[in-house]
């Protein structure tokens, strides 16, 4: 960018007091109000800190297990505790550490990389974090009360049904998962809208930092993968609580349905964890080499391809279930295909190192990156091995898999995370971490890791299965296990050194005053609570390398939005492809409402788990109330005119329709709901193929054809009603009671339509406990009913806003979101009617 261009953005010097305004508006709440904070740096650090705490805790569990396994016939812990330990270790590492840590990085770094003031929905991420912290802590505490689940982190039924796990233990697992489901989906919304809409002007998609691409695909994968596990956990909890036979073979269910759903989530989960970490590496390697990433486009291809191919792998966790060899072969083939994108990234990093003109410095971040390359390479190669069906039959469920999986996850995620932490500390903290301690931490972890896990490949091939708490001396696994245990404690020593480093040197504060590694991306611009002073115009992938003067210019306020023209928190929304400025959003600040909503949501699930239904319902109602309070003040409407952001641009502060960021968030939510329904369709058809008899026996219970038509008619009219409500709204200042009436009718019609459908089956005497067919019929209704509940609340919310004069023809966001969800519901319910009433009728004659 030339000097001439820059002057056209915002005139300097800036008026006095602007920076003070920004500091005041974006100030982090102090003292006991700290929990109300929503700044992405505060929330992100909290998120990362909690995730790291769970990493340490789950690591301690691993040490206890390693101690038990150090020698044959040990009795350091008993069978019952050991079974809880490995379940908690896996669950905590996967759900309470890995995914949240990656989300945390997204929350923490994305806005800084995009030079946005904050995430588009700051309270949403804060809500997710608090729900996760409260719920995760309670979940973890169960280990101290002998209440921890002991079904393994994969929780296969029938072992996890009440018959074999009668206590609340398994329910606590379902609870722990519930929180991560909530926070993951909230994070996905945040990240997708953030990456597409809050980029700085000029940062078209081809200039997006690789980490942004990784987080985008990460969020996209969450949208598709998590609904599968949401459905699976729903099925399991319903079967545990109410005996609906989804997994009970005698009544037409199938234990394999759980495995399909769980691994349809579980395998992509591994890539959900790996992709952002690989994104980190792609950010750090160019900085180490001081050269642009070689093959940026190819890496984007690799990330996208990984995201998709990873959904074709799930059965490779099921190679030993006895399903046809060809099914295995398909998934074996997809497992081959997914190796290619990893190869691309690997060679891209090698090429970038090779392109460097300088001698590569082995700083702590570089060491962790190189450690990652070595470890992940081995993990990838053993991954190809276990993708081979015959080899898998031997290696599956042995310590070979334990070794492989840790090489992939520790190499693919933990080492990059440490690299990333050392690399980005300068923008989070007042001072750097110690290089000396960092090296100690690295070498201890690296050597310890290989000592612990390399021998496990052999332990597994020598016949040691996973999840065994003891083994006899005659098996000959003793020496290898002892070596592994020593390695595990060496890793722990490395982590301890890191903690010491944190304690001695890590002081949270606004950093970013310098750029110690000489990075080229925007997060190393000068920062304060408001992020960067002004939002730069970007014209390359490494703006800081192209324009050494950029930090000064940005800090001087020479770029976009150097002030707070609306007097509150705000950031710039740009177009999704080219990042052209579109409008400015006014963002909510600190508040207790979302914190309370999170706490009550957590309390709701916890109380349900221990079967205190009444207090749970009260907490649920309070959670909804808190949410309503939270959103009531957000939709400020076009209360400020077009504002000047610099560069001759005058942008609106309020838009609705497809351009609005809220509309985008709603679409993401609908895709999530759609994935959930898709998982339901899959389950329905899957169980039909497994036990067509149950469908045949259920055929006489199908209500007459008139009833579904009536339901459909009601649903369609409900959509018409809400459309009418939208069009009968009046201009600002006038309240449209007609619209309010239409909204009420819409809710009534949709609710009646669903009620009619339920009553039809119930009236015929079909009971969900009787067969898998019946259970699936009612599950379909439940899936629509829960959306209906949300719509009902939203409808009353809209009516209240009309009556309060806060909903009119212009300020229409709440009604718009309600109608979007209602349209979606109508679509889903119609599809459901077609399936439930049509499918048995078509299949009846064939059978």
């Amino acid at each position, binding site marked *: 960018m030339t000097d001439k261009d820059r002057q056209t953005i915002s005139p300097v010097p800036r008026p006095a007091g602007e920076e003070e305004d920004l500091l005041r508006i974006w100030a982090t709440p102090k003292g006991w109000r700290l929990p109300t904070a929503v700044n992405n740096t505060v929330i992100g650090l909290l998120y990362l800190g909690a995730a790291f705490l769970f990493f340490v805790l789950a690591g301690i569990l691993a040490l206890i297990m390693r101690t038990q396994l150090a020698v044959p016939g040990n009795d350091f812990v008993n069978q019952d505790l050991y079974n809880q330990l490995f379940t908690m270790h896996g669950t905590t590492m996967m759900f309470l550490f890995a995914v949240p840590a990656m989300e945390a990085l997204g929350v923490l770094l994305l806005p800084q990389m995009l030079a946005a003031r904050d995430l588009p929905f700051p309270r949403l991420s804060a809500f997710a974090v608090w729900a996760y912290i409260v719920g995760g802590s309670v979940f973890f505490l169960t280990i101290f009360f002998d209440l921890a689940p002991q079904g393994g982190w994969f929780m296969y039924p029938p072992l996890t049904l009440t018959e074999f796990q009668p206590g609340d233990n398994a329910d606590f697992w379902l609870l722990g998962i519930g929180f991560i489901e909530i926070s993951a989906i909230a994070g996905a919304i945040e990240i997708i809208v953030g990456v597409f809409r809050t980029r700085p002007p000029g940062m*078209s998609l081809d200039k997006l930092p690789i980490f942004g691409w990784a987080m985008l695909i990460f969020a996209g994968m969450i949208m598709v993968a998590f609904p599968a596990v949401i459905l699976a956990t729903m099925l399991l909890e319903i079967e545990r609580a109410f005996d609906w036979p989804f997994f009970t073979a005698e009544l037409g269910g199938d234990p394999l349905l759980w495995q399909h759903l769980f691994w349809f989530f579980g395998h992509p989960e591994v890539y959900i964890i790996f992709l952002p970490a690989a994104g980190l590496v792609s950010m750090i390697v160019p900085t180490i080499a001081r050269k642009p990433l070689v093959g940026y486009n*190819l890496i*984007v*291809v690799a990330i996208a391809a990984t995201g998709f191919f990873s959904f074709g792998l799930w059965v490779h966790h099921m190679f030993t279930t006895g399903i046809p*060899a060809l099914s295995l072969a398909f998934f074996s083939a997809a497992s081959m295909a997914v190796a290619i994108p990893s190869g691309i990234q690997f060679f891209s990093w090698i090429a970038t190192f090779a392109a460097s003109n300088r001698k590569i410095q082995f700083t702590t971040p570089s060491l962790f990156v190189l450690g990652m390359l070595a470890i992940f390479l081995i993990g990838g190669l053993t991954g190809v091995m276990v993708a081979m069906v015959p080899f898998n039959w031997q290696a599956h469920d042995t310590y070979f898999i334990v070794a492989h999986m840790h090489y992939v996850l520790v190499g693919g995620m933990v080492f990059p995370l440490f690299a990333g932490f050392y690399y980005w500390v300068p923008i989070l903290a007042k001072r750097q971490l110690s290089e000396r301690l960092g090296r100690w931490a690295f070498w201890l972890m690296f050597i310890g890791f290989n000592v612990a896990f390399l021998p496990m490949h052999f332990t597994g091939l020598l016949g040691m299965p996973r999840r065994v708490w003891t083994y006899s001396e005659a098996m000959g696994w003793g020496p290898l296990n002892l070596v592994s245990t020593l390695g595990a404690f060496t890793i722990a020593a490395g982590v301890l050194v890191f903690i010491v480093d944190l304690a001695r040197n890590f002081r949270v504060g606004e950093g970013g005053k310098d750029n110690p590694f000489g990075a080229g991306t925007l997060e190393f611009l000068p920062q304060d609570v408001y992020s960067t002073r002004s939002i730069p115009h970007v014209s390359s992938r490494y703006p800081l390398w192209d324009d050494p003067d950029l930090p000064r210019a940005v800090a001087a306020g020479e770029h976009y939005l150097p002030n707070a023209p609306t007097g509150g928190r705000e950031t710039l929304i740009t177009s999704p*492809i080219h990042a052209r*400025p579109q409008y400015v959003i006014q963002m909510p600040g600190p508040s207790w409402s979302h914190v309370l909503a999170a706490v009550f949501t957590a309390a709701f699930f916890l109380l349900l788990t221990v079967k205190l239904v009444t207090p749970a319902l009260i907490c649920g109602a309070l959670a909804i109330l808190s949410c309503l309070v939270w959103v009531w003040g957000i939709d400020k409407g076009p209360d400020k005119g077009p504002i000047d952001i610099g560069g001759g641009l005058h942008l609106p502060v309020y838009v609705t329709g497809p351009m609005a960021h809220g509309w985008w968030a709603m679409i993401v939510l609908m895709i999530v709901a759609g994935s959930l329904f898709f998982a339901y369709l899959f389950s329905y058809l899957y169980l039909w193929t497994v036990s067509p008899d149950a469908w045949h026996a259920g055929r006489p219970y199908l209500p007459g054809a008139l009833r579904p038509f009536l339901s459909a008619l009601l649903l369609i009219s409900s959509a018409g009603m809400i459309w009418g409500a939208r069009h009968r709204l009046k201009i600002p200042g006038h309240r449209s009671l007609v619209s309010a009436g239409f909204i009420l009718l819409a809710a009534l019609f949709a609710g009646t339509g669903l009620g009619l459908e339920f009553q039809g089956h119930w009236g015929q005497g079909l009971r969900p406990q009787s067969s898998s067919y019946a259970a699936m019929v009612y599950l379909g209704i439940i899936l629509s009913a829960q959306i209906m509940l949300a719509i009902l609340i939203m409808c009353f919310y809209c009516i209240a806003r009309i009556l309060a004069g806060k909903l009119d023809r212009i300020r229409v966001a709440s009604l718009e979101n309600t109608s979007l969800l209602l349209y979606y519901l109508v679509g889903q319910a119609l599809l459901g009617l077609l399936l439930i009433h049509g499918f048995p009728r078509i299949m009846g004659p*064939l059978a």
Partner: protein
Amino acid sequence: MTPPRSPVKFLLYGALSLSGILAWAGHFGLAYGVQHLVCQSALIPANLWHVILAAATGLFIACIGLVFWNIRSRNVFRDPDGDVSQFYTYVTLTLLAVSLFGILLTAIAGFMIPVCGSLR
């Protein structure tokens, strides 16, 4: 300043650039689904399996070829910002190639291994 636009173009670009990968997903889902039906229910006779697989593979490869040719020969991602259209073209074509590989692997599996039976 360009006026704000609706996200239609964005969606089109998105779908088009992912067409290869979507084709792979479609082929994979079709192969796995049909095979499941052949083996688990008598809905599709086993002797049709290879015909269906060959047809599906041919169809999807043809689709990929069509998209490839279209993007290559005409400047589908017409865009004032040359970098963006170049980026889209590169990503789309490479994804098509990688997906083609994925589809071929699936087809090889389908032709090498008998449709049902666990072979154990």
